[in-house]
């Protein structure tokens, strides 16, 4: 039954695709065709919805996602800190299916054939596409930390940098830790997903310790020279709220781990913690990295900022954390959502035989909790620049909070509820 349905759907998709090509030759008309979106996170879910909404249903969209539900990385530090539950950050894909008519398939894409414009699925079979969107997030470079390059080590020393089972497991490790223990969080060199995220996590763990395990400590092992985001606001929170609890160490890149002793091995030093939370360096998600797309620094996909298409593989659009970012652009869920809309508009133009919008704009807002109620933000607006062929931050716009405050604590939750609805319902 399932197969029949899939075949029927593909027939419709292929027919629509042929029509799109005809319209393409004619140089105008309504967009139609079949777009396959790989990855249902902030980028992929957004583009799936916006393609259906903006095309008024004339473009067929298949979303392939390995997880049964969406789990948000933003706000997941509040689960680790004890303020929120997994239920609060988990959302069904039913809205995309039932309200927007997106075909959602729970599976893994194992291969992309960009010449035949097809993908293969782990459970078998595959499908053709007129345009492909890869929004795979990141995968970790465990080989950079040899002791962590096996499943057993990874089950003990967590990253919790993808929300899900590891979020719960890290919370459990913190709950099980004795008072007087040490939690260490290791941050990789930039660029990495969610620049302020590790510092927010340090704050929320320290907040938990302050209230429940007051003799305990938080140590930040940062591979970077300095705090990479909202520096003044974070360091003020550490000295005002967590004096004697949070210790910050810069230039402290983790080179290896001694799993048996829960010890991080740095270049000239070692650090033993009761709860060791290592965020390994990461790169574009596997499917983007192995599909022949041009990578920068062998890690991030190079994209055309008018369409989010791979610069060497037209027809394949890449969103979110997997791309080589534009100047000062963070790897954030908010930004991935904006990439999704930029690419949705471009794809609909392309499927109708038109050029993408020549003047795209994207913007970012990122809220971080420094305790259960007080929040700080960073915001930026990026406009396309014809000379550099990328989106450039607008000078004089954007910035950070004047000071941590509770008003933005409410705004942060409001942001989450609105962006989740914007993506999924």
């Amino acid at each position, binding site marked *: 039954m399932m197969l029949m349905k899939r075949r029927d759907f593909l027939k419709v998709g292929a027919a629509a695709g042929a029509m799109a090509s005809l319209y393409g030759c004619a140089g105008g008309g309504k967009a139609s065709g079949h777009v396959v979106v790989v990855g249902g996170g902030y980028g992929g879910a957004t583009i799936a919805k916006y393609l259906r909404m903006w095309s008024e249903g004339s473009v067929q969209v298949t979303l392939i996602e390995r997880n049964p539900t969406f789990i948000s990385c933003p706000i997941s530090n509040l689960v680790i800190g004890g303020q929120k539950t997994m239920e609060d950050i988990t959302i069904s894909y039913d809205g995309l299916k039932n309200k927007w008519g997106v075909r959602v398939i729970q599976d893994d894409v194992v291969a992309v054939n960009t010449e035949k414009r097809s993908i293969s699925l782990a459970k078998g079979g595959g499908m053709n596409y007129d345009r492909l969107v890869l929004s795979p997030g990141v995968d970790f470079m465990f080989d950079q930390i040899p002791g962590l390059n096996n499943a057993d080590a990874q089950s003990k020393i967590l990253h919790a940098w993808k929300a899900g089972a590891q979020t719960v497991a890290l919370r459990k490790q913190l709950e099980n830790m004795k008072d007087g223990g040490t939690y260490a969080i290791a941050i990789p060199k930039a660029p990495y997903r969610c620049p302020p995220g590790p510092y927010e996590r340090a704050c929320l763990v320290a907040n938990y310790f302050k209230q429940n395990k007051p003799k305990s400590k938080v140590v930040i092992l940062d591979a970077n020279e300095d705090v990479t985001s909202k520096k003044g606001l974070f360091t003020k929170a550490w000295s005002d709220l967590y004096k004697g609890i949070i210790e910050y160490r810069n230039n402290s890149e983790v080179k290896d781990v001694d799993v048996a002793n829960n010890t991080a091995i740095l270049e000239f030093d070692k650090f033993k913690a009761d709860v060791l939370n290592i965020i390994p360096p990461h790169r574009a998600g596997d499917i983007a990295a192995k599909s022949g797309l041009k990578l920068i620094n062998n890690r991030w996909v190079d994209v055309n900022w008018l369409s989010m298409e791979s610069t060497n593989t037209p027809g394949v659009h890449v969103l979110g954390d997997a791309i080589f970012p534009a100047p000062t652009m963070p790897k954030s869920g908010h930004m991935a959502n904006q990439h999704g*809309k930029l690419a949705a508009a471009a794809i609909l133009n392309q499927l109708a035989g038109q050029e993408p919008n020549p003047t*795209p*704009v994207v*913007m970012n807002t990122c809220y971080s909790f420094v305790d259960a109620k007080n929040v700080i933000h960073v915001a930026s607006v990026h406009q396309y620049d014809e000379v550099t062929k990328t989106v450039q931050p607008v000078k004089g716009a954007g910035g950070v909070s004047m000071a941590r405050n509770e008003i933005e604590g409410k*705004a942060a939750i409001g942001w989450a509820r609105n962006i989740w609805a*914007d993506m999924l319902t």
Partner: protein
Amino acid sequence: MKLLPAIAALSLVAVTSAAHAADPNLGRNLAATCANCHGTNGNAVEGAGMDSLAGMDKAKILRKLADYKSGDKPATIMHQISKGYTEAQLDLIAGYFAAQK
């Protein structure tokens, strides 16, 4: 023979100007950059504390944005975001939201 380069040059101009013509969906695209906080098409989630912009009077939206830009209206974040858009872009955004239900 001499005409060919001239025609080629002319069509180049035509192609270039076509590529730079404003996208007919520019207002929609720009307004979508606000939806992360203000909801899809300006329909914010109820009770989440964000302004719902769908159907709001265009002049009212523009006045708010101008006041954020000038600093007349105190803000936590909108004074920083509004400065990232040109007046023409804000006009398109306000027009798009005003036309939504």
